[in-house]
């Protein structure tokens, strides 16, 4: 954050993470390879959320609507209008930008707990709309994109390797974008707003405009994740607009560490495997327990907020690696 932070080391660390994920394509077994592609797309969702929650200090409980805006913006145009990936993906991003701008203009009039409830309610409206227009969306059942709709020039997203690299490309772009944003003057203003909004205003900053910009940027990044999810994995449905998908990015960011650039990815990775493994183990030993993601997510949230509020990288930064962005 501060100009004195070692620039080279930070860039090298982020490049190393991307390189490691690149190598993953060649070494990961098939199952984990598929999982990792999904995790990278969901980590983009978490990074978008982190920009608003971690850096700007605005706790939204409605980010599923931005993810879903991107998902339906891309999915519906591809499914019903036959748009190519090259057109449908930008359509998803534009949809996300428009929705986040509209919601931000309303929701940012509130603060604190009211902001949380208002965003949750708008997201609920978004979810109900996907059900109401079931003729086009097929509601909870969702829609599956034909393989022909998942081609981008020579790239075929039904192929696992192509899909993996596409997910990695989006992940890398958004990772370096957030890194650039939080190290730019704009990022410093966002942190200042989080720390003391009134003081920031009295330094001459239009805090509303800055929060608006942060919300739209955050929402648009989340929408890009939603659009990519629909096009890469070929499925989209109302489930992705439910409250659960507003809570999950919050959980991932809390686990990895709010206001750290790599925390969202780490949190998504950790939670995905934690849920996966704990369900496996518990279902094997206690087959009649009906374990779903619910219990693990619930316990993780409570324990985190009680004992580990800074998350993995937040704690690491506080104790040992102070230069971590």
């Amino acid at each position, binding site marked *: 954050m501060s100009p004195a932070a070692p620039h080279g080391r930070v860039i090298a660390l982020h490049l190393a993470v991307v390189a490691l994920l690149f190598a993953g394509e060649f070494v990961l077994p098939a199952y984990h390879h598929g999982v990792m592609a999904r995790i990278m797309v969901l980590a983009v969702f978490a990074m978008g959320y982190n920009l608003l929650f971690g850096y700007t200090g605005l706790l939204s409980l409605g980010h599923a609507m931005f993810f879903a805006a991107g998902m339906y913006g891309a999915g519906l145009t591809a499914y019903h209008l036959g748009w190519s990936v090259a057109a449908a993906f930008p359509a998803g991003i534009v949809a996300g930008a428009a929705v986040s701008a509209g919601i931000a203009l*309303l929701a940012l*009039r509130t603060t604190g707990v009211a902001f*949380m409830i208002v965003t949750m309610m708008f997201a609920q*409206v978004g979810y109900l709309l996907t059900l109401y227009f079931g003729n086009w969306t097929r509601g909870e059942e969702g829609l599956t994109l034909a393989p022909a709709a998942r081609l981008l020039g020579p790239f075929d997203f039904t192929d696992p390797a192509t899909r993996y690299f596409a997910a990695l490309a989006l992940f890398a772009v958004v990772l370096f974008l957030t890194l650039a944003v939080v190290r730019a003057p704009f990022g410093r203003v966002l942190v200042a707003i989080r720390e003391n909004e009134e003081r920031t205003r009295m330094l001459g900053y239009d805090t509303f405009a800055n929060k608006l910009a942060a919300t739209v940027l955050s929402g648009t990044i989340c929408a890009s994740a939603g659009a990519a999810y629909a096009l890469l994995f070929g499925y989209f449905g109302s489930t992705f607009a439910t409250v659960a998908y507003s809570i999950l990015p*919050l959980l991932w960011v*809390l686990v990895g560490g709010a206001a750290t650039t790599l925390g969202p990815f780490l949190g998504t990775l950790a939670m995905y495997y934690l849920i996966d493994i704990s369900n496996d183990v518990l279902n094997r030993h206690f087959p009649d327990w*009906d374990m779903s993601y*619910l219990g693990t997510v619930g316990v993780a949230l409570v324990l985190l*907020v009680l004992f580990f509020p800074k998350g993995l990288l937040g704690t690491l930064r506080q104790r040992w690696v102070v230069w971590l962005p």
Partner: protein
Amino acid sequence: MAFGPHLLLAALEGLVQAAVLALTALGLSLVFGVMRVVNVAHGEFFMLGAVLAWGVTTAVSGHPALGFAAALVVAPLAVGAVALLSERLVLRRLDYNPEATIVATIGLLYILQQAALTFYGPEARPVVPPFNIRLQLPWFGYSAYKLSVIGASAVVLAATWFVLARTRIGLVMRATQYDREIATAFGIPVERVYAGVFALGAMLAAVAAVLIVPISQAHYLMGADPLLLSFIVVIIGGLGSLRGTVVAALLIGLSDGIVSVFFSPTLAKIIATLAVALVLVFRPQGLFGQAAR
């Protein structure tokens, strides 16, 4: 059916909804009013009440009324105990910080859902009503039990009002709500008041659930709707206002009941949710509340 009777039926259904909603929302409102805690797990206390009611009524043999009466006592007490435990173990340790408690109660929501899924299962199960009498109105027959739900809910509401407005307990609660520090200075055991209020809020939701479960069914995901509707009621009615809560519950319950009869229930929910979000944006003190104190 002609329009008039149809409307009457819708109004009766709405009134039953409103009665149960008023109880549930009052619990949420009390907790927020006194503790400044937004309890996202409130709907799960409702769900827990319904599931426990099923458990108790199936365990007790004999006349259905016997089991139901037992459920009406046991379920709220058990839910109150769960709430007390979560207050002790989680909320108190967070010092009731508003944002942290929201995240924690979201966690609690999932834990309670998982517990219900594990011990009760994914099925929706009915509970036999304590009595099965149909009142024959000139146009249609109507369940006497549904009418008794309205009555029972009114009794509980009145009792709660009496406790809040006329007893020492209520006075202590209002003092704590007004200013935590001053209350402590006057020797009010604030932590015990908080624990009591949190348990009471959960118990109100549980009573509401026991009353409604013979009409609807018990299911581990049934908490979402009562939570959302309670939020709506509390926001429209203004926080911490008993009268506002009851008026708003009537408004929402009736309009929801009536609109659902004539329009798609999804559309009704969309409109209600959107309207309430906008109320919160443009008139944060609610429609019946006063401007910020």
